[in-house]
């Protein structure tokens, strides 16, 4: 009896997930364009501000690079050192830019999230890409009204992730884990007045994958006096 019930419940879950993905996919434009899934949408303004809790909502995200299950600490650290495409740690792409990784052509997508986190599982599935065994690159530009010393980048991710601010690696978390707000927090750093580039590599094993990020001030309070933009920084 239990076995039959389990089979029925599994089938129902699959049906619901399938309907949900179909809904998410249905929202994509007919030309494979960038109409976003339910929690993500294309930016509709030149700049975006963090939400009231300081989470950064605007990102350029590259379609996933399939690398297999590399979410253990040493494997993740090695995986982000591989050059998948030229200038991957310095490039500031625009929406629609393409890179070639191996035999695949991958596209950068500008996305705004309506939540505190960026759901890479939905992102990948909506583009009919495989989120499992994958490395996602994401980048954004954080514009500061003045120099901000003694701030920290606070992140969470499913699963491993490594983060850079203005080209400097500042924090990494590893292993099979779920996204937890302020899981990894960088050492103190300075955001300079004007644009600052925040870049991350998120490595997923299987199942759900997402990330969240915000800056905390010297009193560990979220910083909201920032704006975010993508693709308009001078190279």
């Amino acid at each position, binding site marked *: 009896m239990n076995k039959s019930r389990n089979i029925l419940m599994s089938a129902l879950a699959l049906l619901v997930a399938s309907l949900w993905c179909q809904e998410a996919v249905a929202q994509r434009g007919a030309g494979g364009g960038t109409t976003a899934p339910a929690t993500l949408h294309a930016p509709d303004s030149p700049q975006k501000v963090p939400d009231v809790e300081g989470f950064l909502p605007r990102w350029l995200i590259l379609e996933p690079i399939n690398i297999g299950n590399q979410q253990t600490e040493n494997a993740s650290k090695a995986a982000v050192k591989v050059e998948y495409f030229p200038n991957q740690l310095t490039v500031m792409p625009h929406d629609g830019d393409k890179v070639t990784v191996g035999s695949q052509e991958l596209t950068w997508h500008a996305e705004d999230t309506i939540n505190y986190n960026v759901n890479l599982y939905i992102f990948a599935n909506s583009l009919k890409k495989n989120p499992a065994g994958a490395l996602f690159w994401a980048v954004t530009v954080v514009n500061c009204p003045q120099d901000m010393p003694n701030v*920290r980048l606070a992140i969470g991710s499913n699963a491993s992730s490594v983060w850079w601010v203005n080209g400097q690696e500042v924090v990494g978390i590893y292993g099979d884990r779920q996204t937890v707000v302020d899981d990894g*927090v960088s050492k103190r750093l300075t955001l300079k007045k004007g644009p600052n580039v925040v870049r991350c590599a998120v490595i997923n094993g299987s199942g759900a994958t997402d990330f969240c990020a915000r800056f905390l001030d010297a009193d560990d309070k979220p910083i909201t006096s920032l704006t975010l933009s993508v693709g308009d920084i001078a190279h």
Partner: protein
Amino acid sequence: MLASAAFALDGQFGIHDPSTVTLCDGKYYTYGTGGNPLVSDDGWTWRRGVTPARTGAAPDVIHIGDRFFMYISGVTMISSKTLDPDSHDYKWEDGGSIAGRESPDDFINPIDPGAFLDPTDGRFWLTYGSYVGYIRLVELDPKTGKRLHPNEPPKNIGINLEATDMIYHDGWYYLLGTRGSCCAGAASGYNIRVGRSRKVSGPFLDNVGVDMIEGGGKLLIGSGDRLIGPGHFGLLNLGDTGAQKFSLHWEADLDRGGASVLDIRPLLWIDGWPMAGENMKEGTYEIESVRTGTALELAVEGVPVGGARARGGFGGRGGRGGAGGTNGFAGRGGPGGGGRGLFDGTGAPIPPQDVARVSTNWPAGNIDVRMANYMVQAQQKWIVTAVTNAGGYPGSPYFKITIAGTDRALTATADGELTALPAFTGAPEQLWRLDQLTDGTWRIMPKSNSKEALAISAIGSSSATLEKFNPDSDRQRWLFKKP
């Protein structure tokens, strides 16, 4: 001098009936029966001090305004602008008689004065008395230290106690006193008891509602470990709202031939009652954040204890048994399946992780320190060891904190972060002050940043740093757990 895992103080600290340890110009002072003076630069290592102008039994000292008032059994008072005999302000002035027998046949033994300044209204009080008669309370003038209303009779507030003192906490006045026999070495039954009242004048009831004037009193501290007969409670005024400490003596320190010695212990507050805490003991610990539930560790890839498990269970999965099983597991490891099931274990105890083996993969130089789920792994087990001749703080020496089985030492960096150096050098950045806070958790502070009062702080589930101590936050509260 560090003869036991639970440390007594260092240096010369023999004393009987010590006054409340009092801070003056950065030094700690206490005076015992017979004027026996002790002084310390840090509250850990003590030496003989300078005898005050008047000696007697069981004095108490309090700092109010620009004066230090010393009350001596009898009760008389002397005062000085400083306790530092090297200061040009050091001069004891006679304050005269403060309290005693109110009449020739007054049934009272006016000894063991305890001075209390009420933080809510600035009024100044003195308790005194012993087993003959009652414990009494009189009001003093905080400007002069003398009896405010000399003609007003004292109030009786307790019985069967001596060495009383009063403290205030969170809307309650607490009367502390010592009960039991003194002065009999290891046969001394001394123990410290407490009752509380909403008013400074009592009645002081204990935790089961018995008035201290009828013999009530909840135990604060009794004999334990190698120490017998605690007495003469005094709350240190350190201005540290996260950690409170009290001074006392032990009638018999068994490691010192049963000598009477000074001690300083943390004061905890549990359900509205003060309780005696513990100074840190040496040992191997998991160091866990109260805030996040994650534990300090070296930032290295962990190895499961016993090694990685083979896919499908140990030695390969055995087949499920047939349908004849009467429970869900009866069929496990069925016909032809020699291996163990996924949840069956190895069949033998798995030994603790060998740090010598797993650390061969660790970086040779400095390793970052972070936090993670505690998995009983080698990079998460820390040994706390007292460091000799490195000084200390009230009640304790400084400690080094190293990964068990290695020399890797927890270190504070110049920019207020944490790392683990390959070896312990004894530098202030590697000396740690471990204070038990009033809720029983621990604060961890490096000696190198003692002026800024930085403490290890959990700023994220996986990240720790050094930040100014905030007594209202749980970021800087830690548990030292059995590993």
